[in-house]
C-alpha cells in the first residue's frame, strides 16, 4: 500500500469523527502549547538575568572584604572582616596593568531633606569612575567630578524618584539638600533606568566617597568595583588584585574577588536547569494526551471491528492494518502539535504585549522537542491499539464480535 494512500485513509478516519478528533487535538495542543510556553518563560527568565548582569557594566570584578572559604573550624561569615578595605587599598589596585579603572563604594541609609520634605534613602559614596563603569547616564546636569578624595566638593547626584519627591516641578540642579544635617549641592539627576538587582536606581543619592565615609563615620569600603582592561584580562586582574591586597594586608588573604562571568555562569546554569525542569513538567501533560489517544484509539478499534475484518478479507496484511492505525495516531499528534505551537505563539505574543521589558523568545529546541515528544507519545501510545486491530480474527471481526 502506498504511503500517500495510508495517510489519506487515516485522514479520512480523523475527518469522519469530528468530536473525537477535536477532543484529542485539544488535549494534544494544550500539552504542546504548555511545553513551548513554559520553556519560553524559562528562557526569558534566563535572558532577563543575563541582561541584568551586562547592565552592570562590562569586564567587572567585585572586591569584597572578608574571605568566603572554609578553612577548618567554624565557617567564617562573609563580611566579618579582619581588616578594613580602605581607599588606599583601592588606589593600589591601579598598579596592575590589567586594571583599567575602579570605583570604591560605601553604602548606607540616611535621611535626605529639602525644605520641609524629608526622606530616608540609600546613600552611595563613590567616585567619578562609577558612572563609566556602571554605564550610568545623567538626565540633567552631570555626574560627580573627578577629583582627589581629600578635596572633593560637597556635591551629590540624585535619582529621578527622589528628585520628584523632594523638588516636584521645581528645578533641582543647583539646589541644596541636607543629608544627615550635612549640606550638599545637587549637580545632576540620574537618567531613569528602573531597577537594577533589586536596587531602585531612582531612589538614591550619590556623593563623593570621603563624604559618605564622614556621613557614616567609617574608614572602610563596602566593596570595590574593578573594571579590567578587557574580557581576557579578567583572570589576570583577579590574580593581581588578590596579590596586591595580600601585600598590603601583611600577607593575609582576606578579600574575596568575584568576577561577573562567574556569577553569570552560575545563574545561567541554574536557570537553564530550571527551564528544562519546567519543560519536563509540561511534558507530563503531553503524556496524559498520549494516554488519551490510546484510550480513544482502543474505542475506535472496537467500534471499527467490522471494518478491520473487511480489510482483512480484502487482503490487507497485519502490517498494513498496523500502519493504517499508526498513521491515524501520527496525523493526530502532528496536527495537535501544529495547533499547540499556534496557541503558544498567540500566548507568547500576548505576554510580550503585557510585559514588553521581559525578553521573550522561544528557543528552537522547545518547538523541536515538543513536536518530537508529541509524535512519540501519539505513535507510542497508538501501537497497542493498532496491534490489537491487526491481530483481530477476521471471521469474528466481520460479524462485529
Amino acid at each position: 500500500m502506498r504511503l500517500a494512500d495510508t495517510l489519506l485513509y487515516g485522514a479520512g478516519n480523523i475527518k469522519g469523527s469530528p468530536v473525537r478528533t477535536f477532543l484529542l487535538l485539544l488535549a494534544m495542543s494544550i500539552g504542546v502549547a504548555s511545553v513551548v510556553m513554559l520553556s519560553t518563560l524559562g528562557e526569558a527568565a534566563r535572558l532577563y538575568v543575563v541582561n541584568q548582569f551586562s547592565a552592570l557594566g562590562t569586564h567587572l570584578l567585585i572586591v569584597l572584604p572578608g574571605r568566603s572559604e572554609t578553612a577548618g573550624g567554624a565557617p567564617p561569615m562573609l563580611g566579618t572582616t579582619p581588616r578594613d578595605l580602605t581607599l588606599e587599598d583601592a588606589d593600589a589596585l591601579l598598579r596592575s596593568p590589567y586594571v583599567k579603572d575602579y570605583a570604591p563604594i560605601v553604602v548606607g541609609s540616611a535621611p535626605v531633606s529639602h525644605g520641609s520634605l524629608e526622606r530616608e534613602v540609600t546613600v552611595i559614596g563613590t567616585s567619578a569612575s562609577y558612572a563609566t563603569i556602571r554605564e550610568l547616564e545623567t538626565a540633567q546636569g552631570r555626574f560627580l567630578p573627578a577629583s582627589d578624595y581629600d578635596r572633593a566638593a560637597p556635591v551629590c547626584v540624585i535619582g529621578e524618584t527622589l528628585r520628584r519627591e523632594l523638588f516636584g516641578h521645581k528645578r533641582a540642579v543647583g539646589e541644596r539638600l541636607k543629608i544627615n544635617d550635612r549640606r550638599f549641592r545637587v549637580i545632576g539627576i540620574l537618567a531613569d533606568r528602573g531597577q537594577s538587582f533589586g536596587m531602585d536606581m531612582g531612589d538614591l543619592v550619590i556623593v563623593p566617597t570621603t563624604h559618605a565615609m564622614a556621613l557614616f563615620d567609617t574608614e572602610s569600603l563596602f566593596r570595590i568595583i574593578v573594571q579590567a582592561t578587557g574580557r581576557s584580562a579578567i583572570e589576570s586582574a583577579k590574580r593581581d588584585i588578590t596579590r596586591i591586597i595580600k601585600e598590603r594586608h601583611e600577607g593575609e588573604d582576606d578579600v574575596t574577588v568575584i568576577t561577573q562571568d562567574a556569577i553569570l555562569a552560575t545563574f545561567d546554569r541554574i536557570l537553564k536547569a530550571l527551564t528544562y525542569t519546567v519543560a519536563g513538567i509540561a511534558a507530563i501533560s503531553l503524556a496524559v494526551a498520549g494516554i488519551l489517544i490510546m484510550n480513544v484509539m482502543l474505542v475506535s478499534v472496537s467500534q471499527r471491528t467490522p471494518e478491520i475484518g473487511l480489510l482483512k478479507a480484502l487482503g490487507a496484511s497485519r502490517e498494513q492494518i498496523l500502519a493504517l492505525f499508526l498513521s491515524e495516531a501520527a496525523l493526530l499528534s502532528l496536527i495537535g502539535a501544529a495547533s499547540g505551537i499556534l496557541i503558544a505563539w498567540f500566548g507568547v505574543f500576548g505576554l510580550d504585549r503585557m510585559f514588553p521589558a521581559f525578553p521573550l523568545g522561544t528557543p528552537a529546541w522547545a518547538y523541536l522537542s515538543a513536536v518530537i515528544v508529541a509524535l512519540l507519545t501519539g505513535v507510542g501510545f497508538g501501537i497497542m491499539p493498532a496491534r490489537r486491530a491487526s491481530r483481530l480474527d477476521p471471521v469474528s471481526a466481520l460479524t462485529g464480535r
Partner: protein
Amino acid sequence: MIELRDINRIFEVGDEKVHALQDIRLTFEPGEYVSIMGPSGSGKSTLLNILGLLDKPTSGSYLLDGIDTTSMSDNQQADVRRNKIGFVFQSFHLISRLTAAENIALPLTLAGMPPKQRDKRVMDVLESVGLTERAEHRPDQLSGGQRQRVAIARATIMRPTILLADEPTGNLDQSSGESVIEVLEALNNDGIILLVVTHDPDIGGRARRRIRMVDGFISEDER
C-alpha cells in the same frame, strides 16, 4: 480450480468439541455455479470461511489453482485473499465514509496501485454493474440493491478465481435481489467460480450445482 481434501474443522466451546465440518471433499472447476444450502449450524458459513482463507481447517488441505494454502503464512494468505478470492456479504460491508468508487478501489489501494490506474479499473467495473453515475455517492445515498452491486464490484475488481457470496440477497427485497443475482450470474458466465450460500430455495435452485449440508456433512451434491 479449487480442491478441498478431507477438511475437518473442530471448534472448542468450553469443554465441548463441536465438529463443524467433517471430512469435506469438494472440487470446483473454473466457471462452476454452486449453491450451498442447509439449516443453521450445518457448517455452511464455516465452509465459506475456510474457502475464503478467513478460517483455518483443523485438518485436511485446501488447494487453490494448484497451490496448497494450508501451510501458508498469514501474510501469504492475505495475498491470496486479495488476488484470488472475492467476498460478497449479506450486510454489504461498505465503508460508510468512502464513496462507491473509493470502496471499490480498496483492494487496488491495498495492493499499492497508483491512483490513475485505479480510477480506470474502477470505472470499468462500475459500468459492468450499471452504477457509473453513482461513483461519487456514499453508501447511505444508495439503495440496498445498489450497495450490494458496489460490494460485488469491489469483490471482482482484482479478477479473482472464486467469488464467495454469503446470503447476498438476505437484506434485499425481491426485485433488487433478482438484479443482484443477475449481476453475479453474468460474472459467472465470464468464467469466475460463483459460490452462493443461501437459505432461499429459489435462489439456491438457480445454481447448476446444488450442495446441501447437514451437521457438517455434505448430504446432497446435485448437478
